[in-house]
């Protein structure tokens, strides 16, 4: 094991296909046209000294260190800004160049502290490296003159106005201006890579300084703490606090982030088993070397003191927990589950797989349920997020997945973002999207709330359609109405690729006058002219891509909306090539994977219905069982059945249904009615309040496996430390299965993936060996596509012909009225993730200590609510309290909150309405009333008390903490 060093080529790669050949230091080198001389030299293995250049940002040419000489040309041009040309003869090391470089370095070092031995960057400092590279031995100018290094003048003890103190305001990194060489790499990383423009250079000449915002602290500036500047910094100026505390790492492994569905690749840089830092991996095909605050910094939860490390059981949920041995826990669960099945029937138990766990772990949980429990009662958290994507895209295209890779966005001309807030939910994708928008692509945002993308530095949406929550179908159908009635559809594509009769039926349907933008304005609140212009732009603006999130799926018409999106893409011919497509932005790291692995009660791995005899036969033979041909219960159905008394036991791996699922009281009632609830998690989450058995889980740093991201990319997760709890989650599931009599003997997750490949045609070519070689692959990966499939449906749809489906708008039954006049919708914030179990246990809380209710100033004024006031929010389901945030980002009549904190209890107010096809809950629309309040509601107080009681642990074993 050693530290993975990625080559810094100095400038970004050229995309040109034309190759040119030149000579550098006597070596012939062939590179794409447009490559810089610096990069060409590096391709030939020659590292030209440099400070202000790095290949994550464009060349800048300010440090004057990378100078070279070209035969037949005057002067000493900078190699970073000089393009390579056919036949050039370049010298990177001459006496003249040596003298200039030494002189430049002398100046740099004359204004830099000489505390290398005690500096955090010691061993990882490009300034130090360059001093060595140019052979700097002496600084003739001395260190006493004008400088930024010392707080006080050494000679007369007068304070130095140029000196600035260290900014330690960000919880994860420090900014030490005394060490800054003003190369502006950080400023450019913030602009070009992250797209936030939080940093700038203030002052001129010797007074130039890096400044967050308007000479602010990092924490007070617009900085989103993505870490790009820290990564770009060649000195110790911007340094991770963890590196300052621990020291430089000595080995690293490439792994995959366990937060959102973008699935960024990181190098986990280690010292022994201690994680020093996470650095985004340049070869990561989802993130291309970028990161966000969560993946880069928010991993502290993995060693948080709240982690439960010993298995625990209790008879009643009102009892305190009792620590037991693993063996005792397994035996207890096995005997309880068997007892329940004997008493209440085979179908009285089930399991929930986790979209945070690996594919291999998910596969094992569904296998345990199907083969071990002998039923199909297995579901996953995708039920509450992207199950409509599965249904809708399967109906129309024939496969339940996004059609593109993330690189595709670089070729997009018009983007529709609907029901998603990428800058907060999928930040690294948002940065890639913003990069494309800054280069001229057009953006249409369809969202009730003015999300950041609508207007942020150097990005502005061409159209923002601020629709009323719950009217997605009306708006999308109306976009199609405009496209069809104005003759803007792509007839050639449709005739070749789609069912023509179905298209004609659909075209007649959308053309009806009641679907015109003017007719639907009353329902949706969207100005007809804007809608028409948006439709025309999407149909005629070049490559059109649609990106969507849970604002699409989490509605009673979620599945219909997904189909409306698919219709729109097909009608405009935007499927089957780079730059187009339908792109669901998946919420959790492995939502895609958990669905692929057969986590749904009606589907075996690879989206094959349980009623298919041929498919069942494959598993029957391999597993030596007879699988049920009946679909099992979905999560909400399990809870209903529990309340009815026919569902009594559940194994929940890595999901907190009590906090994340709607209508909390119903979830609580369902859990309370069960006789054996087994929670397998890192922490005593909210669901664990109702559990009888707790099995400690492991983090993504503690196990091997794979995650599959939103682009169907299968990425490796690599173990960098031993599980604190002793076992990876797949081992726990295996031990449980063994206790139930299953003959499982996996010794490594790669064997589980081999079984997936053996049984599932779309994974047939996947193996750890291939992933080792390729880094990652996108399924389908089989004989037809040995290296995977970046873009789907290229020549034909998975189902053959694309199917147009009529999408009639049906109003949700969740309606506003005199008692509940406002519509509540929910979302995420950048620094927090989902139910917050992980991010709340990191320093990310500095950005978001509590969930706030965003309310329009007009609605607030009517109710006498001021910014920061406690307000009560009530719906037909329940009520809760939180503090108000006055804003104009939401329209009057709409309120918005996040759901990251359990005390907020946002799901006490959400209703039990669900998507008609998949039972995906309607989180995004709840009719509510808001009023002033004194503090927490009765339910919140009772809940807190119950939660506190249910977390008591009687210590019987030595605590491992």
């Amino acid at each position, binding site marked *: 094991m050693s530290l993975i060093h990625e080559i810094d080529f100095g400038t970004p790669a050229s995309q040109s296909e034309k190759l040119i050949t030149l000579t550098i230091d006597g070596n012939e080198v062939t590179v794409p046209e447009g490559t810089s001389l610096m990069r060409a030299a590096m391709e030939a293995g020659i590292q030209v000294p440099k400070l202000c250049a790095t290949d994550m940002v464009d060349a800048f040419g300010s440090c004057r260190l990378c100078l070279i000489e070209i035969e037949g040309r005057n002067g000493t041009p900078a190699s970073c800004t000089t393009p390579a040309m056919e036949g050039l003869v370049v010298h990177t090391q001459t006496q003249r160049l040596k003298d200039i470089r030494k002189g430049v370095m002398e100046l740099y070092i004359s204004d830099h502290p000489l505390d290398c031995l005690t500096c955090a960057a010691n061993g990882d400092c490009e300034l130090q490296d360059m001093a060595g590279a140019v052979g700097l031995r002496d600084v003739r100018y001395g260190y006493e003159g004008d400088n930024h290094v010392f707080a006080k003048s050494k000679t007369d003890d007068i304070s130095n106005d140029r000196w600035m103190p260290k900014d330690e305001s960000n919880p994860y990194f420090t900014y030490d201006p005394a060490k800054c060489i003003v190369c502006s790499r950080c400023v450019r990383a913030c602009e070009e890579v992250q797209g936030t423009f939080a940093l700038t250079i203030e002052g001129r000449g010797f007074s130039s300084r890096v400044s967050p915002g308007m000479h602010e602290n990092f924490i007070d500036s617009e900085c989103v703490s993505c870490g790009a500047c820290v990564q770009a910094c060649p000195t110790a100026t911007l340094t991770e606090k963890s590196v300052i505390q621990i020291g430089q790492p000595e080995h690293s492994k490439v792994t995959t982030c366990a937060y959102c569905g973008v699935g960024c690749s990181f190098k986990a840089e280690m010292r022994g088993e201690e994680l020093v830092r996470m650095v985004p991996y340049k070869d990561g095909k989802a993130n291309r070397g970028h990161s966000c605050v969560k993946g880069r910094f928010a991993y502290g939860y993995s060693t948080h003191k709240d982690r439960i490390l010993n298995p625990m059981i209790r008879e009643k949920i009102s009892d305190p927990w009792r620590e037991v041995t693993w063996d005792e826990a397994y035996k207890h669960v096995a005997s309880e589950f068997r007892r329940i099945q004997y008493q209440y029937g085979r*179908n009285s138990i089930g399991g929930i797989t986790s979209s945070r766990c690996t594919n291999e772990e998910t596969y094992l949980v569904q296998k345990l349920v199907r083969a071990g429990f002998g039923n199909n*009662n297995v579901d996953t958290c995708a039920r509450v997020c992207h199950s409509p994507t599965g249904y809708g895209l399967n109906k129309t295209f024939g496969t339940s997945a996004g059609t593109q890779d993330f690189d595709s966005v670089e070729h997009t001309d018009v983007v529709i973002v609907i029901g998603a807030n990428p800058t907060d939910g999928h930040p690294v994708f948002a940065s890639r999207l913003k990069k494309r928008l800054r280069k001229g692509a057009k953006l249409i945002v369809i969202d009730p709330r003015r999300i950041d993308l609508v207007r942020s530095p150097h990005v502005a949406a061409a159209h923002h359609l601020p629709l009323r929550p719950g009217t997605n179908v009306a708006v999308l159908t109306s976009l199609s109405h405009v496209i069809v009635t104005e003759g803007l559809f792509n007839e050639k594509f449709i005739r070749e690729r789609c069912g023509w009769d179905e298209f004609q039926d659909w075209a007649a349907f959308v053309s009806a006058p009641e679907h015109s933008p003017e007719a639907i304005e009353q329902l949706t609140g969207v100005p007809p002219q804007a809608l028409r212009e948006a439709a025309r732009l999407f149909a005629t603006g070049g490559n059109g891509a649609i990106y969507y999130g849970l604002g699409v799926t989490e509605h009673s018409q979620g599945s219909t909306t997904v189909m409306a999106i698919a219709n729109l893409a097909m009608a405009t011919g935007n499927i089957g090539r780079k730059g187009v497509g339908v792109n669901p932005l998946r919420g959790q790291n492995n939502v895609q994977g958990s669905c692929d692995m057969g986590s749904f009660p009606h589907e075996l791995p690879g989206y094959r219905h349980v009623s298919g005899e041929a498919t069942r036969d494959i598993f029957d033979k391999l597993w030596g069982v007879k699988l049920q041909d009946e679909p099992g219960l979905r999560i909400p159905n399990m809870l209903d059945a529990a309340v009815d008394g026919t569902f009594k036991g559940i194994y929940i791996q890595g999901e907190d249904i009590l906090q994340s699922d709607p209508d909390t009281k119903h979830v609580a009632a369902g859990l309370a009615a069960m006789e054996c609830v087994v929670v397998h998690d890192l922490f005593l989450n909210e669901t664990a309040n109702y559990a009888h058995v707790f099995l400690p889980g492991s983090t993504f740093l503690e196990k091997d496996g794979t995650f599959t991201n939103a682009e169907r990319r299968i990425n490796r997760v690599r173990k960098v430390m031993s599980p604190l709890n002793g076992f990876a989650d797949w081992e726990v599931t295996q031990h449980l299965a063994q206790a139930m009599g299953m003959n499982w003997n996996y010794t490594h997750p790669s064997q589980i993936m081999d079984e997936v490949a053996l049984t599932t045609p779309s994974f047939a070519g996947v193996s750890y060996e291939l992933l080792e070689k390729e880094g990652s692959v996108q399924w389908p990966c089989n004989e037809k596509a040995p290296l995977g499939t970046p873009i789907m449906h290229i020549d034909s749809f998975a189902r053959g012909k694309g199917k147009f489906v*009529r999408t009639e708008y*049906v109003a949700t039954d969740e309606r506003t009225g005199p008692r509940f006049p406002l519509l509540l919708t929910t979302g995420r914030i950048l620094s927090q993730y989902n139910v917050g179990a992980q991010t709340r246990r990191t320093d990310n809380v500095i950005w978001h200590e509590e969930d706030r209710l965003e309310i329009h100033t007009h609605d607030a004024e009517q109710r006498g609510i001021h910014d920061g006031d406690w307000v009560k929010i009530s719906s037909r389901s329940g009520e809760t309290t939180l503090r108000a945030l006055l804003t104009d980002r939401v329209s009057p009549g709409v309120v918005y909150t996040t759901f990251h904190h359990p005390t907020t209890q946002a799901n006490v107010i959400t209703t*039990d309405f669900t998507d*008609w096809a998949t039972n995906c809950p309607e989180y995004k629309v709840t009719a509510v009333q808001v009023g002033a309040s004194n503090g927490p509601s009765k339910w919140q107080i009772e809940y807190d008390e119950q939660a506190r009681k249910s977390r008591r642990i009687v210590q019987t074993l030595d605590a491992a903490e």
Partner: protein
Amino acid sequence: MDNDNHKTTADKLVYMANQIATFFHTQPKDEAVEGVSNHINLFWESRMRTQLFIILEKEDNGLDPLVIEAAAHIRKPGSVPA
């Protein structure tokens, strides 16, 4: 609060079935009946279908006529081995 919070499973099943019917009402006529029965066969667990048949026997069951029409094509759950 309203009664919505105390819906029985039967209430919910009627609601869900009617939601499915509402979608297929908007589809071409010849696909509607098959659409509803297919959907329920594919996604409803046997005890949900069993309950649906019990509901179907009641007069005034609140079910959409399309669900009632589709019932003939909905698979009757067999005896599930215990």
